[in-house]
């Protein structure tokens, strides 16, 4: 039997959709573990990235730090906090926030730093204050990249929340970890499939968000440059 037939049989078995620890419950738990860290990371990293991109201060240090953070094994950080702090909410929150910050920060920085200097000059020439330049010109132009950063951060967190089941959390990783422990491949495959579906839904959500919040002029420009 292949991965998909195992996964399909398990996901479509109605017994798995009811009661304690059922599929809908774990999907909701997984979303909870995703949204809170992502919001916190965004509140820290978007303003920081925009500020660095606007002022150009500390840019090299921030980008290098964010790149270096990639080598930190999240599983290690997670189990370390579990041992040091016990099972408090900080145990899962801190690694997930730390994981989401680098991509959001770097993309916000790249987006704002990459705004055409001519456009910035025009904004200043029209008498905009520094604050107005940032909020009305630089951030809207940087929005596509800021969204790429948020999307990457969201994918990281969705993926890693799976691992968090290893230290006893709920979420879709529960099915994978428990299935592996009891040598049942059905929930393992089903849980993995649901995580992938969730990740694809996140990608779709950001595609829709991109259409809704990116200024229309910027979108048509992107389309024009793509067809060139």
């Amino acid at each position, binding site marked *: 039997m292949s991965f998909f037939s195992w996964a399909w049989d398990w996901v479509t078995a109605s017994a798995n959709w009811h009661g304690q620890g059922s599929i809908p419950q774990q999907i909701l738990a997984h979303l909870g573990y995703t949204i809170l860290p992502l919001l916190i990371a965004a509140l820290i990293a978007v303003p920081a990235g925009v500020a660095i991109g606007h002022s150009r201060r500390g840019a090299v240090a921030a980008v290098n730090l964010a790149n270096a953070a990639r080598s930190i*094994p999240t599983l290690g950080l997670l*189990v370390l906090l579990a041992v040091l702090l016990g099972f408090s909410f900080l145990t899962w929150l801190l690694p997930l926030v730390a994981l989401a910050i680098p991509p959001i920060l770097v993309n916000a920085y790249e987006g704002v730093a990459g705004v055409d200097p001519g456009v910035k000059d025009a904004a200043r020439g029209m008498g905009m204050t520094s604050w107005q330049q940032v909020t009305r010109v630089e951030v809207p132009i940087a929005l596509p990249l800021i969204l790429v950063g948020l999307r990457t951060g969201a994918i990281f967190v969705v993926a890693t929340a799976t691992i968090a089941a290893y230290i006893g959390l709920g979420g879709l990783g529960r099915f994978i970890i428990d299935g592996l422990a009891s040598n049942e491949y059905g929930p393992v495959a089903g849980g993995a499939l649901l995580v992938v579906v969730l990740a*694809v839904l996140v990608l779709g959500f950001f595609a829709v968000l991109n259409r809704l919040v990116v200024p229309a002029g910027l979108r048509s420009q992107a389309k024009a440059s793509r067809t060139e």
Partner: protein
Amino acid sequence: MMWSWIPDNWSLIWQLTWETAKLGVLSALYGLIISVPVGIVAARWRWFYPPALIGANVLYGIPSLALFVALIPAFGLTDTTVIIALTIFSICIILPNVVEGLRSVPDAVRQAATAMGYGALRRLVTVELPLASPVIIGGLRVGMVSSISLASIGQLIGVSSLGYLFIDGLQRDFPTEIYVGGLLIIALAVVCDLILVGIRRILTPWQPRREKRSRRVTTVAVRGQAA
């Protein structure tokens, strides 16, 4: 921190480090070997690139544990499963860099090579690939660091790596093991990264000593991979 644990378990630590290095480095190198020809095709026949990029982005969104699990029926709880999954992630990171690198070769350079009588293959091998190599190696660096870091997740399906120290440390409530595992993974990633920087310097003596990356390339390189 219990320092005496380290010399007492020296051979175990050394073996796990070696296994992690093997998983991470091999996956990144396989990723490079596959990405270069595919990237050459994608840079030449432009219609091929957008679907390849979308495919890479979707694959890249798959959690590593889920991909390991999906490969278990075919390859079992073995090194092969982990290496194939990490190779797929590496391709997602390296392939866009190969294409960007080849596309960033100035047209004038290409035309000069043609005017000097270079055929397509000779131009590709002796002019375009060397000029693209800093960007390609940039992608390889990201792929290798992420693969080394991700290899530890393989421990959850029983494939031995430094991840063993995390799991054992959690079960025995023994932070020293977790510190050692984490620091060795980071150290391994740093060493491999420095080796690749050295290789790039030897291969591209015309480049300035300090790294100069275009904005576009940094954005590509920022991606990396989560768990």
